[in-house]
């Protein structure tokens, strides 16, 4: 549309810009540039503390602006700007709040990690800031081209972040895999844009919607092909099965703090654009895409939960668990209703805190080298570090959906939206997968609170309490069998390490504390957050 106008007048026409709408993006990007400039102006690498503090300040600045945007949107309603390419509405503001909070938490977790791994410089922070701005842009995009722009800004920075730990070969391998597959799916996505443009004559989301509502295209092949390509592009980004296969490898290989960031921010950005494009632009075609999402959701839920069960590596397990969560968010999309979108937003918001907190713990327990990710490393953690173990247990239980955490309401709301959308079998599958998922969250929890030694060494008297009909030792063996842990050794190396406390960097502890606090406080008093997501959806453009 801009291009058409420019061609007609043969002069460059600068559209009006309302800067408040893009201020958070500008702050994050500008901050990244400043940080990079500061880095290049001094001879030695920037001090880690400086990078952390400036990242936190930049992110908090964007966070504050997001709240300003919120009051603005609440007072004056949503609007589009820059020739209708960018939108500022409740939906985008919620994602901005999410991404900037995730950014703050990431900076807190990363400091301890970088210090421990001995990685210098502030490039990690710069890349994360850029990536975050991409995620926000995706949520604000009102044009497929801008969606693509945001997607690429988000992704390219993430490829580098994944490969950031040059001391681990897995890190580089994961980065390369992610890059190749990401490039592949981006190509698919761009092709989808092209086909959609071909069918509707525009890339603007609002205009696509109005075009589709004005013209009755009875199963236009080009349009449907374009839509399916877009769907695949998004499904790759949010890791829906069968476009998920990069996820376990990348989550495992990436530095642990980056994994948490990726799980929260990339998923939020991807789903934000996914929801906006499909629910509002392709809303008219929902009869065509809802069945696809239906099947995608079922497969994603089951594969995510099922494969997580058999994982021994905590990062891979959490990767599959994140796939399972993506399946739940797909439930909200599949409902294709205001309630569904609101539930999905709430899900993403609550999940961001749970997953960043979880990976913060993983980053700490990974110990020097970021290698100790066998679940056996969590044996007896409750005894040596009760508070830390308790926080992790809470975050895991929240992911399992235990009441009085935000995790319960997340699942509850998407399932309700799904049932209201007459997709009862889907809701039933989702709940079944949640039951399955509870297993692997509980397994880690039980390990943490179990004895430090392996099964056979435990004296029978140690468990006198629970044994009703079986002697304690048999009970223990059965427990191990039930947890699929027969083959988890006491791991002499781990046992030696586990006897000593793992040093917990103070800032990481703060981050975990914030995550737990958000998860529990809004679990007990859900009203503010539910309200936030609800209002965000009310002010949803187009």
């Amino acid at each position, binding site marked *: 549309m801009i291009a058409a106008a420019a061609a007609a007048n043969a002069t460059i026409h600068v559209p009006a810009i309302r800067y408040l709408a893009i201020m958070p993006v500008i702050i994050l990007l500008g901050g990244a540039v400043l940080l990079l400039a500061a880095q290049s102006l001094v001879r030695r690498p920037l001090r880690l503390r400086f990078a952390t503090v400036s990242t936190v300040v930049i992110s908090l600045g964007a966070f504050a602006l997001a709240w300003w945007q919120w009051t603005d949107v609440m007072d004056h309603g949503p609007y589009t700007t820059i020739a209708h390419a960018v939108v500022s509405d409740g939906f985008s503001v919620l994602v901005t709040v999410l991404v900037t909070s995730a950014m703050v938490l990431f900076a807190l977790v990363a400091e301890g990690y970088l210090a421990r791994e001995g990685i210098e410089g502030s490039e990690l922070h710069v890349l994360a800031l850029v990536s975050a701005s991409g995620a926000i842009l995706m949520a604000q995009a009102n044009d497929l081209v801008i969606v693509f722009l945001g997607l690429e800004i988000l992704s390219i920075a993430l490829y580098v972040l994944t490969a950031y730990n040059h001391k681990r070969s897995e890190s580089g391998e994961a980065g*390369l*895999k992610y890059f*190749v*597959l990401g490039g*592949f*799916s981006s190509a*698919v996505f761009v092709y989808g844009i092209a086909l959609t443009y071909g069918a509707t004559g525009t890339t603007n989301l609002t205009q696509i919607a109005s075009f589709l509502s004005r013209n009755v295209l*009875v*199963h*236009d*092949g080009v349009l*449907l*092909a374009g*839509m*399916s*390509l877009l*769907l*695949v592009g998004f*499904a*790759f980004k949010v890791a829906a099965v*069968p*476009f998920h*296969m*990069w996820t*376990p*490898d990348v989550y495992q290989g990436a530095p642990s703090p980056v994994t948490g960031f990726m799980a929260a921010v990339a998923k939020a950005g991807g789903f934000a654009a996914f929801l906006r494009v499909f629910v509002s632009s392709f809303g008219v075609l929902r009869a*065509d895409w809802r*069945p*696809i999402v239906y099947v995608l959701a079922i497969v994603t839920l089951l*594969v995510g939960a*099922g*494969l997580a*069960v*058999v994982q021994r590596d905590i990062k891979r397990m959490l990767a599959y668990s994140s796939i399972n969560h993506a399946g739940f968010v797909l439930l909200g999309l599949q409902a294709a209703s205001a309630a569904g979108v609101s539930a999905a937003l709430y899900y993403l918001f609550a999940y961001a805190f749970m997953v960043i907190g979880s990976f913060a713990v993983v980053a700490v327990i990974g110990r020097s080298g970021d290698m100790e990710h066998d679940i056996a490393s969590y044996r007896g953690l409750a005894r040596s570090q009760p508070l830390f173990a308790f926080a992790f247990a809470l975050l895991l239980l929240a992911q399992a959906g235990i009441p009085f955490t935000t995790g319960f*309401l997340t699942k*509850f709301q998407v399932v*309700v939206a799904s049932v209201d959308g007459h997709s009862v079998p889907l809701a039933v599958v989702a709940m079944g997968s949640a039951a*399955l998922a509870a297993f692997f969250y509980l397994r880690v929890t039980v390990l943490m609170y179990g004895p430090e030694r392996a099964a056979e060494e435990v004296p029978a008297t140690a468990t006198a309490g629970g044994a*009703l*009909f079986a002697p304690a030792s048999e009970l223990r063996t059965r427990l191990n069998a*039930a947890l*699929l842990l027969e083959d988890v050794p006491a791991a002499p190396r781990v046992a030696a390490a586990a006897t000593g406390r793992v040093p917990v960097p103070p800032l990481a502890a703060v981050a975990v504390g914030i995550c737990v606090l958000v998860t529990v406080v809004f679990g007990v*008093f*859900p*009203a503010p957050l*539910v*309200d936030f997501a609800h209002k965000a959806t009310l002010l949803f453009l187009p």
Partner: protein
Amino acid sequence: MLHIAYLMALLPLAGFAVLVVFGKRLGDPLAGWVGTVAVFGAFVVACIALGGLWNEPASARHFTENYFSWIAVGGLQVKVGLFLDPLSMTMCLFVTGVSALIHLYSIGYMKDDSEYSKFFIYLNLFVFSMVLLVLSDNLLVTFVGWEGVGLCSYFLIAFWHERDSAASAGKKAFVYNRIGDAGFLIAVFLIFSKLGTLDLPTIFAHRHALGGDATTAVALLLLLAATGKSAQIPLFNWLPDAMEGPTPVSALIHAATMVTAGVYLLCRMNSVLALTPDARWVVAVIGGVTAFVAATIASSQQDIKKVLAFSTVSQIGYMTLAVGTGAYIAAIFLMVAHAFYKALLFLGAGSIIHGLHDEQDLKRMGGLARVLPWTYGTFLAAWLAIAGIPPLAGFWAKGDVLSNVFRKSPVLWALGVVTAILTAYYMTRLFVLAFRGDQRWAHAVSGHAPEPPHECPWVMRVPLVVLAVASFAGGILDLPFVHTAGLSSWLGPVFSNSLFVDHEGAGLQSGLAVIDGVAAVIGLSVAWWAWRREWDRPALEPAFLQRVWYWDDFYDAIIGRPGQVLAKVAATTVDGRVIDGAVNGVATLVRKSASGVRRLQTGYVRNYALGIVLGLAAVVAFLLSRVWWS
């Protein structure tokens, strides 16, 4: 002044929080003082709030305030707020007041206990929960308080959990209460399904929309809840066992405050109860029968605290009877008076137990009047008060209940009078066995004479004296000839459309009062004559009464044993074969299929890309098939 009312709940909560964090470090006795000061503060706030409420005109004496929205999901809107009216105000006053005194007493009583600060943590949490229960303007939040007091009760009964009897008594109390709680929950569900709200004022305003059957069901379910919490038939058995807890706990939770929560709940819901006369009859009969049965049992118990426990059950039976009659004000009057004298009786008993080094058997007491003068003097007031001797508080309160019941049903009234005789009898028996006669405790039990009892320290004496004064003069709250200035006119507006008003002539009322007085004197003199010399009269303590009408054995036979058999079957067959089988089957299935799917996860990028392509192909094929098929 009313705006600070929330502090009544917040101060004990703050005390709780401080003690949780610093309790161990504060230690003995500082932790106790922190807890006591917090609750005293709540009492002071209650007094200030009372002043505020008093200054309002009688018709405008209610105050609601919303603090925050707790749950807002779809149709369910739960706001946390307080609902202050004369009823909840009265409850708050005596709950915080008595609690403060018992906290003070506990500083002395719990001295040198190994878990001193923990005791006050629970106690403060209890006061918070109780105030929450009383003040909440929402049934769900009331339920939170209801569960909170139940939880604290459980913790405190089992406080000395190294003793098996204490641990199992705690469990028993918890299980019995759960049955009642289930009734409460179902009532809440029913109300919500019919009215779509749990907000108390809204429920009262729309009570007619409940419909006849639902109203009766709600009333009966709330009665079930009340029988659990307030230890009425059929769920009264837990209270005597609850005496395993420290004596201040028995005084506070299992005599003065928590056990009256059930009666309070019924009073609170009076406008719903008013719509269902049938359910009210059930309430009245349960109250009357409980009062009688418990009084008979109390007359032959040997453990001083058990006597008091059954006496509590019996007295709450009177309150329930009054509620069933519609004489809510009389119920509250008796509740307040009972809180004073029963707390005093327990504290006095605690002082005896303390002095005799944990001796609770009445048969090993006797002649304590000389060695425990303070305890003796204050106990005297409490004894006469509960026996119903004019002009002490018990006489007026019980008389108020009975004169109302007379109009409702002479049969229940007669039962009440018989119970009154029994009450005077068992209390006199207790008093005589403990304070008069030989000093049986001095007889060597195991060869050497025990050291003489000692009177308690001042922190324990002060509450005794304050409560003795209150028990003596508590009747002035609502003397029958000045109904216009007392509790009646104060509480009147709360029960305006549901109160049972007795229009008896002054003559009839005086007659009934004389009968009450005579009943008290009869019971008192019979017991005095029977137990003054003898301390062992097996004929007067039949096994049937000692074993609580075989009530526990009955439950054990019809519920306990079959339950155990069922549990065994469930554990071995149902759980072992069916459930474990299903779970293991699912687990195997997941494992097998997962390891199959896992093989796709090769680690090669080309395979992953192939996955994407295949998925894409499937999606495109699906959509294009729609084009072709249409």
